């Protein structure tokens, strides 16, 4: 085994040629994932709300967007943006920016569905109580329904983030210097340790994604503590008392 190939190139896996050259490797993967999920969050909120609109001219375009994206492989979308963006903007686009746009548009459609499900999971009475106190629809959404829906969305949202983090490896195909491409380059140069290299980057992806899901679990527990946890706690205490 040639693990030294992995250790000797760890800088390159984690940061690419940075600080001497452009940022790459894991750092770029994470940046793409973070940027992608951030943009997708807002796209998702907007299209999730539009999809629930009573007005057909808002609802139908949103349904078309969501369904087309959900029925298309991400890889194809990256190709589209790669070949179309220079045509549309009349100038070449950096590959990293192109993929970032593809990630945002792709993940946005899934987040829109998560937002929709999150909003529908809130009992109708919440909206009714808010509206009957004089709040308009937008205020009721902003202050009452969305905050609760967003909390319910956390697990699905983190799932989507984990998914996107892994999917950043697809940017490899148009030459973005992220983690998978860095690994391929090192492998092509050394030719002696493909198993070690690809095992090592699998471990890196795993560590990132696993810590994300664990964080999400912790966050869920923390956020539900005051609304439900104390009640359970109290119930257990009462039960204990009565058994004594």
């Amino acid at each position, binding site marked *: 085994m040639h693990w030294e190939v992995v250790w000797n190139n760890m800088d390159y896996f984690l940061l690419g040629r940075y600080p001497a050259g452009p940022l790459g490797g894991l750092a770029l993967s994470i940046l793409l994932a973070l940027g992608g999920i951030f943009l997708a969050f807002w796209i998702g909120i907007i299209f999730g709300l539009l999809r629930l609109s009573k007005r057909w001219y808002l609802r139908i375009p949103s349904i078309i967007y969501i369904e087309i994206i959900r029925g298309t492989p991400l890889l194809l979308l990256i190709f589209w943006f790669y070949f179309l963006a220079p045509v549309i903007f009349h100038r070449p686009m950096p590959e990293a920016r192109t993929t970032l746009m593809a990630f945002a548009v792709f993940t946005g459609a899934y987040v829109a569905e998560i937002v929709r499900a999150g909003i529908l999971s809130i*009992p109708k*009475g*919440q909206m*009714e*109580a*808010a*509206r*009957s*106190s*004089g*709040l*308009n629809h937008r*205020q009721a959404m902003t*202050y*009452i329904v969305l*905050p*609760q829906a967003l*909390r319910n969305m956390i697990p699905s949202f983190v799932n989507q983030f984990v998914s996107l983090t892994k999917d950043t490896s697809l940017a490899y195909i148009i030459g973005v210097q992220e983690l998978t491409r860095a690994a391929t380059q090192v492998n092509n140069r050394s030719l002696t340790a493909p198993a070690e290299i690809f095992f090592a980057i699998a471990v890196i992806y795993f560590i990132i994604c696993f810590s994300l899901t664990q964080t999400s679990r912790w966050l869920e527990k923390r956020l539900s503590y*005051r*609304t*439900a946890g*104390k*009640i359970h706690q*109290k119930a257990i205490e009462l039960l204990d008392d009565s058994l004594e």
Partner: protein
Amino acid sequence: MIRVEGIHKWFDDFHVLQGITEHITPGEVVVVCGPSGSGKSTFIRCINRLEDVQEGKIFVEGKDVYSSDVDINQLRADVGMVFQQFNLYPHITVLKNVSLAPIKVKKMSKIEAEEIALALLDKVGIYDQAHKYPAELSGGQQQRVAIARGLAMQPKIMLFDEPTSALDPEMINEVLKSMIDLAKDGMTMIVVTHEMGFAREVAKRIFFMDYGKILEKGTPEHFFKNPQHERTKLFLREIL
């Protein structure tokens, strides 16, 4: 104060309200009772336009509830509502539940709104629970918060949709007490309930509804001692 003129409503082909015409005067407390499915909840939900009607009109303080140019949010601010399932906002504290609408709708300052909210919470006897979350309160306390929330906009009318039906029996009285206090303060109230003790004590009139119509109405005196309609007699025999 509230004028209801010949309203009809259908849920698909179910004719839930079949021509109701009524006039409710300021300070009047009206109890609406009747079997389930009789349309009583739908009736009061029409008054603040949580439901649409297909025929007829409702005027609140002279304003046509169903006209397209009425400011429905303004109108709803004048009509407080309390629901069977409380519908408190679980993600914010009791104090914020009560002060949210005054801050967002009336653009009241946070300090002023919270002062009013605390005074109302004190009035319904849960001042010391202000900083808790709804899930940490008992059902009776939650419903009293809901009453305080309804009052926070300083409405002219309060609607109660079976406010005690989801409560454990020992919690009903604390909620009714708050409602009786409110009635004695001169609030105009429409209350859908089967609490006949409450009706007897504070109602000025009782409406008995079935099949989407008000079959019988009158003072508690008339209603309990001398009901005219066979359906009312049957209903009273069953619940008293």
